[in-house]
């Protein structure tokens, strides 16, 4: 008897592919509009979406694990470097790239510590039985899951729509939390809304945030499954 509902995993896998496809479109738009920000987050979401869809549904997985590990390691380093640069430039604060670094780190953990196969047979990432496979420290998985779920909630609540992709790095805000007049790194005039109707619809800041929220919930679930 299949007790774990396979549809749940197909649902998450489909959502992950939808996020990946959406971010591919965003990337294309970014290229066409020569937008300078957000492309790194979009690339990260594309890879995470494709990778996690294969984790939720084994048949949809492709590529060697080593390839994915390399991709997420590079992305992790990229976002860490951007975070450090942001702190150096704006002073002590939590850069918006940090959550993307955390998410890429979580992706690496998912490859380093594969999840045991569930009874549904839907889950992949299992090359060995759960009893013999190395297991990530549950405390770390729980911490990461809580972090990405908090990111989902606070992104949804944020008045700065699109900040998950483009950041909100006002110099004065970053340094003191007080009003400033410096442009954000989304570059005014180049951000969503400056292009045509397609741009306005597809690159709507709330839609960008939604892709991040969906990614966070799926990742939180995957991390909980690692416990």
């Amino acid at each position: 008897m299949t007790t774990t509902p396979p549809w749940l995993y197909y649902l998450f896998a489909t959502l992950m592919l939808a996020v990946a496809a959406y971010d591919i479109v965003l990337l294309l738009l970014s290229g066409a509009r020569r937008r300078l920000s957000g492309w790194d987050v979009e690339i990260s979401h594309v890879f995470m979406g494709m990778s996690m869809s294969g984790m939720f549904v084994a048949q949809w997985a492709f590529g060697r694990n080593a390839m994915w590990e390399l991709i997420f390691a590079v992305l992790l380093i990229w976002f860490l470097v951007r975070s450090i640069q942001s702190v150096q430039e704006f002073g002590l604060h939590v850069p918006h790239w940090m959550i993307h670094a955390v998410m890429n780190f979580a992706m690496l953990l998912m490859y380093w510590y594969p999840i045991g196969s569930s009874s549904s047979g839907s889950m992949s990432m299992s090359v060995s039985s759960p009893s013999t496979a190395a297991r990530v420290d549950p405390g770390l998985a729980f911490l990461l899951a809580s972090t990405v779920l908090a990111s989902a909630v606070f992104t949804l609540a944020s008045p700065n729509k699109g900040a998950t992709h483009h950041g909100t790095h006002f110099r004065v805000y970053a340094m003191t939390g007080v009003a400033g007049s410096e442009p954000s790194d989304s570059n005014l005039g180049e951000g969503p809304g400056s292009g045509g109707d397609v741009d306005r619809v597809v690159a709507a800041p709330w839609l960008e945030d939604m892709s991040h929220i969906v990614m966070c919930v799926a990742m939180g679930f995957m991390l909980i499954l690692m416990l």
Partner: protein
Amino acid sequence: MTVAEVTERAPARGARRSVSTAIAQPRDLQRTFRLVLATVWLLDAVLQIQPFMFTRGSNGFSGMLNASAQGNPRWIAHTITWNVSIIYHHPVLTNTPFALIQFLIGFGIVGKRTTKPALALSIVWALAVWWFGEGAGGIFHGAATPFGGGPGGVLFYAVLAVLLWPSEGSNTPFVATRTVGVSTARAIWAGMWAVLALLSVVGAGRSPQALRDLVAGLNNGSQPGWLAHIDRSAESLFLHHGATTAILLAVVCLIVALGVFLPPQITQATLVLAIVVFAIIWVAVQNFGGILAGGATDPNSGPLVILLALIYWPPTITRATSSAIASESAVLATDA
């Protein structure tokens, strides 16, 4: 502090553009705490869709609920087993809406228009889970000890929903007073901690063996090594000094209960005491609600008690806040 981007209309082109003028606004602490509560609900929702939750039998959700019926008076146990039988026969059909409700609550609390319905739903849901899922927290058969989450971890969700109900007003003397007023907020706090103090020393709460078994029962072999090590220390402490520890906890609870009636500095000290004690209990006794062992539906009472303590924290007006408010006033005056 938060940054609010001001969107203004460019007179020449008539196009809306986001300018980088930012106004510093005092953080809405009540909303921030609601978002933390929403995060916990979202975590619960994700825990609710773990594979075993959809599994029939003693290893599944129905088996877990069935255990909560044990020891309860017959009329309570009967309602729980009735609920269990439905879930047993339809684990997917029942657990799916259970999870959806928690997703709705978690995301609903975030939306400004949906906050109140979501909080109202959370109160109803919390009471239902307290009864059917936690067996009324074990208070009817003397098994409710604050060490184990008594009088029921989920009840704290309901208390938080009431205290964080959206309302305008001042955060002084603390955020919890904003909705219900100073007297009621203090009464709720004192009442809650008095109950915790009472439960610490009645029934199984002061039994060394019961307390030791409480910790041992959580260790199903799936705990990480470091947590199992902490568990062994906690088991040993309870076995040898269980009654003393229980009395000590009761004294702490009474001190914390009185704390909100004292000057702010003393209130802060008692809140730190409450936070530290419940952080230790959450890790060493509640084992993060059993989440790390992979078979839990919520993080138990530890983080919720800590969140409650934070909403009773007397805020301090810092220079930064004062200057931000002054800055905001200046900007608004200029705009006007």
